[in-house]
């Protein structure tokens, strides 16, 4: 089977000579004016930090939270038995009368 030849860079660049200059329509300024007004009215509500920073901070807080919870659980598991827990685990809490 005959292998398909790869066009050279010059052949590709010839395509650029066919390009037509494209512009915007006549209502570009109207849309721009609308956007400009929206931008100036929304300026008071601009977030002081980038959303990426907010997300990263939240993620760190969640990780710290998870770590603390895990540590607390570990501590609970290794904590010494109280007398009541000891009695409960050996079924010594039932009152018997002789």
């Amino acid at each position: 089977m005959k292998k398909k030849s790869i066009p050279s860079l010059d052949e590709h660049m010839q395509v650029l000579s066919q390009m037509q200059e494209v512009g915007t329509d006549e209502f570009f300024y109207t849309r721009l004016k609308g956007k400009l007004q929206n931008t100036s009215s929304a300026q008071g509500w601009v977030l002081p930090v980038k959303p990426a920073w907010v997300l990263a901070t939240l993620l760190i807080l969640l990780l710290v939270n998870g770590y603390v919870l895990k540590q607390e659980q570990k501590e609970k598991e290794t904590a010494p038995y109280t007398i009541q827990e000891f009695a409960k685990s050996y079924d010594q809490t039932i009152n018997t009368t002789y």
Partner: protein
Amino acid sequence: MKQGDEPAFRWLVEQHRNRVYYSVLNMLQDPDEAEDAAQETFIQVYESIHAFKEESMLSTWIYRIAIRKALEKIRKKKTRKRLHAILPWWMPDEKKSEEARYLNPGIKAEDKEKAHALFMAIEALPDNQKIAFTLVKVQGMSYDEVCEIMQLGVKAVESLISRAKENLKKKLNKHYNS
């Protein structure tokens, strides 16, 4: 215009809107993104006209802003792509099919494949090479204009274009061999 005169701003927009739009469209290859970038360019011109020191031509200053806006859009697009790879359920995929990709209306039907391959390769170039190549080879700006916009010497721009061509050759070979 520095005094906030609206008719003067309108005149300025009317004078430059098409060329600004065409510049960013050539870099972004997406008419919606290009419209956004062109609007953001003029908003920044309006907001920071007092900072224009008249050391260069006003048009050069405007194109510099436009190129920066287009690069911001390209970076945001790359970030969205990376986010899509990590969190596909959160970030929708923006990958367009070959048919859906923008193509300049002047390009003949039989050259569509070549044009797509070329613009995909240009998209993958490093930022400085992409700007220099797009402005000189795609847009047809003079070296002097591009040097002014990029604030570089002629030799530096020539070197960027020559490296861009080398990279394009490699990328096109990879495209056709894959």
